[in-house]
Structure formats: structure tokens, C-alpha cells
């Protein structure tokens, strides 16, 4: 299975003759691109698609990624031509668009126990950054100069990067022996410099931070804010809300929790919810309902913009549709089945799972087997492997999140893949995968000699 590059199929150089259109010195001389016909392109992309795994082909148990089934109908809804409008349209002429945005603001606020929600951040990390900017604006408005964000070591890498981008120093918090926040360490870390504590709950081991109320009190007493990373929110829908736990700010990963398709890396959306006290700092514009209809407005002390326009509209539509489809019952059931699936799968694999009780995901350890190798071998069993070697708290971690969409038979297949790969010979592991269209790919060579475009391939191929 091999598909030539477009450039290997055709490379056509056209002279850009702009005579009569623009002065010659304002235009380029020529442009080289593939010039192929529609049937050739249809085959190119159809063949390429068949070289790609997807959640409609099998389980995708990447921990903290929540790869669940993406209902087809949401695509149709997002594709409604009447929803294809420009952001410069006046409010009066796009009441449907604003109505949906307002509805989603409300849905998310309810589900997270927050008071106000912005939909503008185009991804989870952008949501984190937005949330931290809000925290910063809050402190600055109080002339309270704080320089640190506390983040558990087991948190997502984006937490650290987002805090740093906002200009904060990161204080990394070690885990307790039970895999959760170490209260003593937290106590030591908290100071007048603490702008916020960023927490994922359940954390990246799937463990609920049982001391969350105490943690919240500690942070608040020190004048800090509590930030909720929504990556693992699929575990809690309808059972616990960050707002009720004492979180002041949270982001939602709608491409995880609310089933918008991940599209091979995005687009996602990372709406941010805040408590009343922080609502005035939200990005602009927000949408509110008035007697005259929906209107956009700028919050009083808005941090401004985190996206050039209104975020990833198409993604937001799908999130809205998913929430409206499931409703209370469906959302609660999604969490229930996600947790059931994780626990069942863990009960069926031969690998140790060192911490618990976990919710929607668990970090198994492959012990003295290399987790990345076990994962590669799992590919040969026709499934996508879990996240490997992370979080670092668990040695040779295989962070596994089956989500609610797998049935028992699928989980049994997945457990078989786990167990068979785990039990395979060293040689089988090191040479895996052997049944995929591409065999083990050399990462070192890719990085050592970066070839990032077809132009860079030159005559070598």
C-alpha cells in the first residue's frame, strides 16, 4: 500500500501573466503546483483515507483524548447552508447563529456548574491560556501581583505551556503516593505568589481528587484561583460539576467530552466557563438574550480576543447538537458507561494498574516491557493502542480510555490485544508492527534530517 505524492503525479509550472491585472512587479513570476483532474484527486484521497485508522474502524483508547463516536447527523447540521454566515454580519441578521451560541453557552454553564461561558477559544490549550489570562486580569484588577501557577506533575503538558505563555512561573506539584494531589506539598507550594492551581479531575490516572473541597479552600484562602482542566470531564457528566467543587475557571474540550470529531488533530474548541466574579473578564464578544433578540456584547473588563473572530464555529454547532441529542439522561449515561468500560477493560487485562479506584481511564503499566513497543505490537491486532509512557508517575504507563462507545465484545478484543502483545516475545515487540501498511517508522531519522516538504525530497527519491 503506497500512494505517490501529488507532486509525483504531476508538477505544473504556470507563468503568472498578470498583464492588465496588476503591474508586473507586484506579482510573482510563476507558480508550481500539481495540476490533476478530479478523478485523479478522488482516487488519491480515497486511497490515502484507507491508509488511516479512525474511530469508525475500531477502538481508539488514547487516555485523556476521549475518542468517542461522532454522530453523523451533527455534520449535516453543521453543514446547513443557512448557518454559513460571515462574522461581520449584524446581530439582527444572524439570530439563528447567535441563538445557537447562546444556547451552547447556557448548556455548558449548566453542565459545568459555571456562571458564564465563552466559546471563543479554538482548542483546549487555547482555553487554558484564556482561563489563565482571566485569572491574571482578575488579580491585576485587584492590584494583586502574583507570579506563579501551581500544576501537578501529572498534568497535561499544555497546562505548563499555557501558564508560561501567560507569563507565569510554573510550580510543579508532586503526586501523593495514592496518585493524587499531595496536600502537604500543595500547602508548601501555595503562597502569596499563587495566581492559580490548575487541576485535572479525575486526574490523568483517572483518579478523583477526593480532597477537592479542602484543596479549593486552601487555594482560595491564599487568594488564588482554582482552574479545572476539562480533558477528563467525560467521567463526571451529570455526577459532579467543577463549579460545585470550588473551581473558579474551567475549560471544556468539546472534541473530547461532546463528541465533535477530532479531524486528525483538530479543529477542536475549548470554551471557558467562569464563576460570576470572573465573568466581566471573559473575551469579547459574548452573546446574551434580550427582549429584542440575541445580541453580542463586550464584558466590562474583557481580556479582549483569543481568536481572530468567534472561534471554531463548525465545532461549536456539533457540540451543541450532541448535547441536545443526549440531554440529561444521555450525558449521565455517557459517563456511566465510560467508567464501566474502563473498569471492565482493566479487569480483563494482564497488566498491572497501580492506582485506583479510577473512573473513565486507567494507567496500566507494562512493567519490564517497553510500553511503546507493546503499543506498536497492539497495532498488529487491529486496534489503536493507548497513550504510552505518560503520565510519568506510572512506569511504562499505558494510559487507557475506552470511552462509552465500545461494547463488551470490542473491549474483549481490546483486552486480547493488550494481553497478546504484552505476552509476545521481545523480538515480536521490537519489530512490531508487522501487519500495518507502514512498518515501524524511524523517528530519529525524521528529526535528524528534517524533510518537511516535497521540495525538500529533491532527487533523493
Amino acid at each position, binding site marked *: 500500500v503506497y500512494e505517490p505524492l501529488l507532486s509525483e503525479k504531476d508538477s505544473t509550472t504556470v507563468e503568472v501573466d498578470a498583464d492588465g491585472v496588476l503591474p508586473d512587479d507586484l506579482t510573482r513570476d510563476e507558480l508550481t503546483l500539481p495540476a490533476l483532474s478530479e478523478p485523479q484527486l478522488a482516487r488519491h484521497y480515497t486511497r490515502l483515507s484507507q491508509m488511516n485508522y479512525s474511530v469508525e474502524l475500531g477502538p481508539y483508547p488514547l487516555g485523556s483524548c476521549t475518542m468517542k463516536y461522532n454522530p453523523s447527523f451533527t455534520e449535516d447540521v453543521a453543514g446547513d447552508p443557512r448557518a454559513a454566515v460571515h462574522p461581520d454580519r449584524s446581530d439582527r441578521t444572524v439570530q439563528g447563529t447567535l441563538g445557537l451560541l447562546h444556547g451552547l453557552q447556557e448548556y455548558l454553564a449548566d453542565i459545568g456548574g459555571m456562571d458564564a461561558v465563552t466559546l471563543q477559544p479554538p*482548542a483546549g490549550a487555547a482555553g487554558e491560556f484564556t482561563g489563565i489570562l482571566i485569572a491574571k486580569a482578575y488579580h491585576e484588577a485587584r492590584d494583586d501581583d502574583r507570579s506563579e501557577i501551581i500544576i501537578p506533575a501529572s498534568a497535561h503538558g499544555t497546562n505548563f505551556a499555557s501558564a508560561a505563555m501567560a507569563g507565569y512561573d510554573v510550580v510543579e506539584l508532586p503526586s501523593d503516593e495514592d496518585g493524587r494531589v499531595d496536600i502537604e506539598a500543595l500547602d508548601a507550594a501555595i503562597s502569596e505568589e499563587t495566581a492559580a492551581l490548575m487541576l485535572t479531575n479525575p486526574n490523568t490516572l483517572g483518579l478523583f481528587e477526593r480532597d477537592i473541597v479542602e484543596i479549593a479552600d486552601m487555594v482560595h484562602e491564599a487568594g488564588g484561583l482554582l482552574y479545572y482542566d476539562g480533558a477528563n470531564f467525560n467521567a463526571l457528566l451529570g455526577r459532579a460539576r467543577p463549579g460545585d467543587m470550588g473551581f473558579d475557571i474551567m475549560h471544556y474540550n468539546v472534541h473530547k467530552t461532546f463528541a465533535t470529531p477530532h479531524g486528525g488533530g483538530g479543529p477542536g474548541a475549548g470554551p471557558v466557563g467562569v464563576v460570576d466574579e470572573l465573568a466581566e473578564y471573559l473575551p469579547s464578544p459574548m452573546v446574551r438574550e434580550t427582549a429584542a433578540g440575541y445580541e453580542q456584547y463586550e464584558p466590562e473588563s474583557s481580556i479582549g480576543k483569543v481568536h481572530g473572530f468567534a472561534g471554531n464555529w463548525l465545532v461549536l454547532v456539533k457540540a451543541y447538537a450532541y448535547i441536545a441529542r443526549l440531554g440529561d439522561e444521555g450525558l449521565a449515561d455517557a459517563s456511566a458507561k465510560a467508567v464501566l468500560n474502563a473498569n471492565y477493560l482493566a479487569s480483563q487485562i494482564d497488566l498491572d494498574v497501580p492506582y485506583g479506584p479510577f473512573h473513565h481511564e486507567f494507567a496500566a503499566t507494562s512493567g519490564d516491557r517497553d510500553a511503546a513497543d507493546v503499543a506498536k505490537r497492539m497495532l498488529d491486532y487491529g486496534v489503536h493502542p493507548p497513550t504510552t509512557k505518560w503520565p510519568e508517575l506510572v512506569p511504562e504507563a499505558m494510559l487507557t480510555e475506552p470511552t462509552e462507545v465500545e461494547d463488551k465484545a470490542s473491549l474483549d478484543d481490546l483486552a486480547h490485544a493488550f494481553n497478546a502483545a504484552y505476552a509476545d516475545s521481545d523480538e515480536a515487540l521490537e519489530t512490531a508492527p508487522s501487519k500495518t501498511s*507502514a512498518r515501524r517508522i524511524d523517528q530519529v531519522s525524521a528529526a535528524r534530517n528534517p524533510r518537511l516538504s516535497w*521540495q525538500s525530497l529533491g532527487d533523493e527519491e
Partner: protein
Amino acid sequence: MTAGNGRRVGSPYAPHTDADEAAMLDAIGVDSVEDLFDIPADVRFDDEFGIDSTDERELRQSLADLFARNEELTEFLGRGHHAHYVPALVDDLSRRSEFLTSYTQYQPEIAQGFLQVLFEYQSMLVELTGLPVANCSMYDAATALAEAALLANRLRRGASGHRVLVPEHLHEGRLGVLENYLDGADMEIGEYPMDDGAVDVDALSDLVDDETVMVYAESPTVRGVIEERLADIGDIAHENDALFCLGSDVVALSLLQEPASVGADVVVGEAGALGIGSAYGMGLGIFATREEYLRQVPGRLVGVSEDSEDMRAFTLTLQTREQHIRKERATSNICTNQAWVALRTAMHIAWLGPDRLVGIAKDAVTEARALAQRLDDLSGVKAPVHDRHHFREFVVYTDQPAPAITNDLAGRGFAVHALDDHHIQVCITEANADAADEFVAAFEEVA
């Protein structure tokens, strides 16, 4: 699993039969799913959201009804979000689940298809910019610009100051995002003046100093003006050891001077002008730069490697720049990006091919020129306000108040954007050009 009326209760996308659920609970060793939740009583949620579940048919109907509340206007709107016609092929192929419902390519052995498309996208951007490195997506033009400023700043850590110079005419969304991104890096933004819609190069020259880490210019500008002195701007930046960052879009790049030829160190802008059409501002940020800045690039890069059988294979590479490895020392916090939009944009570019791509770019110049002329012929209207070459859009001066005209045009089925009391911005592409006659007629009635 199902209620008596045949409607499934709970999540319609959770496949569990009652028997399976029972067997699974048994295997786990608990009596009920509730036993699996380790949530202290004081933070349990025992209320409901009050969101009714809706079946697919009803929900589609209610959303169709909702969107029907959007007025059906022909849009002559641009300002950084541009609608070119997206061919059916792009919708059809990009909706294939292997693309749409796949995750980031962490296991490249089963993700060669998407990786190759992203590699091809990068290559197309290399061709369009003339710069050898293009990443495989940023969120949008605004965040790409902000990331460019951060990159410039990292390169100039030793500088005495940390100022980015941007044009007086800059889209408010881009400016706003830039402000937020620069805040944490203790950087500041300086504005340089425009002269009749284009960069006032002399004034810029006076403003650039050794505290300047980057000079940003756009072509076309937010007002649709094609800059004529890009090379001079680049020279000014370089003479002061500042980076020259050029903002553009994927259609304009096919026709206008190649960024590399005018000295651009970074190219940012919108690639979503091809691939998604009007999407309420959702976009795809371009990020292309020089080889020497490769390890400072934000976002994901797809590279070529070989598999164990020495076959060419694609993989995400240089991931040590990224936050999941480098955490707070990453080049950026971007993780989930716009990969699927990049796939659509690549398909759209491929569908057009070089000839038709240049063709719609030329149309963007000639249609804008023709439309401005026709509006200029109306009494009480002057267009274009700037005596420059324009790409897609231009500013119109109206004797009558612009907000009223905008409003009246909406009543006649057209959407334009009022810039201020007497200025309206108008944008035309091959996608709305068919309506130009009716638009001019309507404008004449209301102006």
C-alpha cells in the same frame, strides 16, 4: 436499554445491552455502575441540567428552524474571512471517517494517509510562500501572527526591548489576540501609520529601532490594499535586526509577489480562504518561515522518514518543540489545531490546480476593481477610497451615513460592513460576483 415506546434511554451512542452490562459489572466485582464513582458526597451533583434529550429527526428539524432565523443575505464581506467556492469533492472526501474521526497521528504506522495529506499541505505552502518550512496548521491568522511575534522574541532574547510594529490598519481580532499573546512575554506593540491605505514606509523607517523584534505588514491589508513596497519594508526590518513577518492568504499568495522574494522571514495569514467557505470566522492559520528558525516553530510538523523496510513513510517530527514533551519550555502551547481544515484546504488547492488558483486570484483583483468603479459611478459614493491596487475588497466612502446604508442594503438582501459613519467595506470573489449587478442596483437605491 430501551423504553417501552422503543426509544433508547441514556446515551444513544453507548451500545451496552442489559446482559452485557450485568456481565461487565460481575467481572469488575461491583453491583452497580454507581459503585464505580469515587466522588465524595459533598460534591456530588444530584440535580439535573434540565436538558431534554431529543431524537435525531426532531433535533435536525429544530436546528433547521433555528438557522432559518438567519436572514438570507448575499454577503460582500471579507476583512480576513473570505468565502471562495468550495467544491463538492472537498466536502465529500474530507467527510470520510478515516479523516474526520481520526486522532493526531501518534501512531504513524496506521496514519500514513492523513500524514501524507498534511505533508502535501506543508509543501503547497512552501510553494506559495517560497519559504522552506511550513507547519501543518495554526488556529487562524490572528494566533499565527501572535506566534510569529513570540518566535521573533525568542530569537531576540538579548534585545534591549521587545516591540512588535504593526500597521495602523489591522483587523481588531488580530490586534486583540496579539495583545493577549504578547502580554505574558512582556512585549509591547507599536503601530506605524498608513499612507492612503498602504504602509507609510518612511514613517515606519523612523519607528524601527533596536527594540523592535518584528515588523509586521500585510498584503492584501485588512482593507484589501496590495502593498507595493514589501521589499523596502523587509529591508528596514532587517537593517534593524528585526524579523519581517508578512500576513497574506492562500489565494493572494498565488498571485502576489512571493514572500521569500521580498525578504519575509515569517509568513502568516489565512489558509481557510480555501477549504471551508463562510464559517463565522473559523479559519486555518498559515505559519511558514526560514530553515534557520525551524526549531523555534510553533505547532506540528510532518516529516519524511523510512519504515523498517526502508519504504518512505511520514511522521510527526521535531516534537521536542511541543508542550507534551517540553511543557513550559515549549515553543507554544498549541496542541489540538486545525488539521482537518488543512486537509480541506490542501484538497481545495489540489482541485483548483495552479491555473485556476491563479485565475481566481486574478478575478479577485479585476472583480474588485470593476465593482469599485461601478460604485464610484454612483452619486454620493466614492470607491475605492484608497488610490491603490486592491485584492477582493476595498473601502467605499458614502455621503449618506454608512450604518443606514448597511441597514438598507440588508433589507435588499445584501450584507456589507460599515467601518465608520461614512465608510463601508465591500468584498467580492468569484463566489458572489454573480450578484454584482443586483448589488450595484441596490447600492444605487440606498446611497
